[in-house]
């Protein structure tokens, strides 16, 4: 039987609405920059959590003026001379210009509702929050800083995984950050992890899931393999909430899902429970 190709008869279909960073992908509400900033980048209509930049995250969590950044001078090198469609060094410069950050993680000391802690916050806007040598080193130093000063470490993750352009050394950041967490634990200190959309691959398979308490933002994707890879390899039908925070909560992998406006008071409560210094 001859097959009739009907796929060309789509001329009358409306084109999808143009996506804009300030348009909610879930309910299409649109916001001005100042409205989003005011709402902590949460959609007032449907509760969708827009991506949040590292500096904005720190400002939303830390007491005003309390944040003292550390290890600001660390920059990625290009150990492989990596060149795909463009050189890695070019991608780094572009990411730095775009984000104003030296790499995908910001660390430093802060206070949350008067309780001292060390913060290690990732920024997905810098090369997909990928973990290379600098992210590994900064997280590792944050662990040491927390251990030395006797305060908990709070980490906020958002990452596509290991940074391919650093090759095997990127993979080595998994054991590196894990060894640092174990040193932190031996010092008796606490690790609190907040996973935001998306926390996948090498970051999920290292420090992000090793916290004493694991929190996630609503609907955050938290899977080791991405949905596309799973679909392609297994040809399985993926559940609607595949790898999402809600599924992870249901299967017992995290302690709580915390909407962004409640994150600061929740972390403050945990810091009090773990006796973080005033």
């Amino acid at each position, binding site marked *: 039987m001859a097959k009739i190709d009907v796929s060309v008869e789509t001329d009358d279909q409306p084109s999808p609405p143009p996506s804009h960073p300030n348009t909610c992908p879930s309910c299409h509400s649109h916001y001005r920059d100042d409205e989003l900033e005011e709402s902590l980048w949460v959609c007032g209509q449907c509760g969708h959590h827009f991506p949040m930049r590292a500096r904005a995250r720190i400002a939303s969590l830390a007491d005003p003026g309390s944040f003292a950044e550390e290890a600001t001078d660390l920059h990625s090198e290009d150990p492989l001379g990596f060149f795909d469609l463009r050189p890695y060094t070019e991608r780094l410069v572009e990411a730095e210009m775009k984000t104003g950050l030296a790499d995908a993680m910001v660390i430093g000391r802060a206070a949350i509702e008067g309780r001292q802690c060390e913060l290690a916050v990732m920024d997905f806007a810098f090369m997909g929050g990928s973990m290379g040598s600098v992210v590994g080193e900064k997280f590792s130093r944050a662990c040491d800083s927390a251990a030395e000063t006797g305060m908990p470490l709070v980490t906020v993750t958002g990452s596509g995984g290991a940074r391919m352009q650093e090759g095997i*050394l990127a993979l080595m950041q998994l054991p590196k950050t894990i*060894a640092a967490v174990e040193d932190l634990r031996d010092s008796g200190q606490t690790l609190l992890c907040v996973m935001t959309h998306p926390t996948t691959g090498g970051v999920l398979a290292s*420090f992000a899931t090793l916290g004493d308490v694991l929190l996630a933002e609503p609907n955050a994707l938290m899977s080791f393999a991405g949905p596309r890879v799973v679909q392609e390899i297994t040809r399985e039908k993926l559940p609607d909430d595949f790898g999402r925070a809600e599924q992870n909560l249901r299967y017992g992998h995290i302690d709580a899902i915390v909407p962004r406006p409640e994150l600061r008071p929740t972390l403050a409560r945990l810091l009090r429970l773990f006796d973080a210094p005033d």
Partner: protein
Amino acid sequence: MPPTEHELRLRERLGRLRNLPLLGGARLSGDLDRLQRQIDRIGEEATDEEIWRKVELARHDERPYTLDYVERLLTDWFELHGDRALGDDGAMIAGLGKLDDRTIVLIGQQKGRDIHERAGRRFGMPNPEGYRKAIHAMELAERHGFPIVTLVDTPGAYPGVIAEQHGQGAAIAASQATMARLTVPTVACVIGEGGSGGAIAIALADRVLMQENAIYSVISPEGCAAILWRDAGEAKKAAAAFRPDAIHCLELGVIDEVVPEPVGGAHIDHDMAARLLGEALRNALSELEGIPGDDLRRRRRARFRSLGVFA
């Protein structure tokens, strides 16, 4: 031009290889020459073809797998099954055996030989149950003071819906964290494919070895090509860009030693490949013997914490 620090490090490592008693034989000294040539070539660029050849050898159908080495190296082998919670993962092997007269725990991924076994073992791609089986075996070793040998041979952790529901990422993290806490000697050897998180999950060891034709990488060449070149067919280019070969890993300090293989590759002579691997494992275990557990753990963590290149 004076030798770079990195060249000096390689020479020192080559020197250590030379001292292996087994490397005295005529055939083996041939292997050593080959290794020397490989190391001499580091200054030059390895060609895309040469690197791709390693990828093919690492994935060769007849390459010896974990159980082939168990059969040839260990006596009184007793396989442990199950993670004590959910199931028994055929992609991950764990068991007790005697290496000479010492009891060790051996852990390693296992690909299948024929198509049925391959499907049953998911081509050596473990589920979380596999990593939890490994953790169970590591904890057993720690309780009894048995050294641990891990053999890494996996394309990666299994990317499945149920694997994610059972906590694949957390299982891989927990397995590494367990290794970071051990006070017994641990030796890992990449014997085929060292694929990403699925591989490092059992490779946070005191000594990390790699067979001459094994590969160790953050992502498969095909995966990297699909993401960066938007074409999985560019795998050869991707492999050439991130260089998953043993010499490159040695150069970066990711591994401690390259384990020689029979001429042409491990698949040509399983017995010889096992003898060479056995020698390297015995040697590494002897080096670690007698070091107090706390020191082992401290050095192990310090070693992994030192990896990375930044300014």
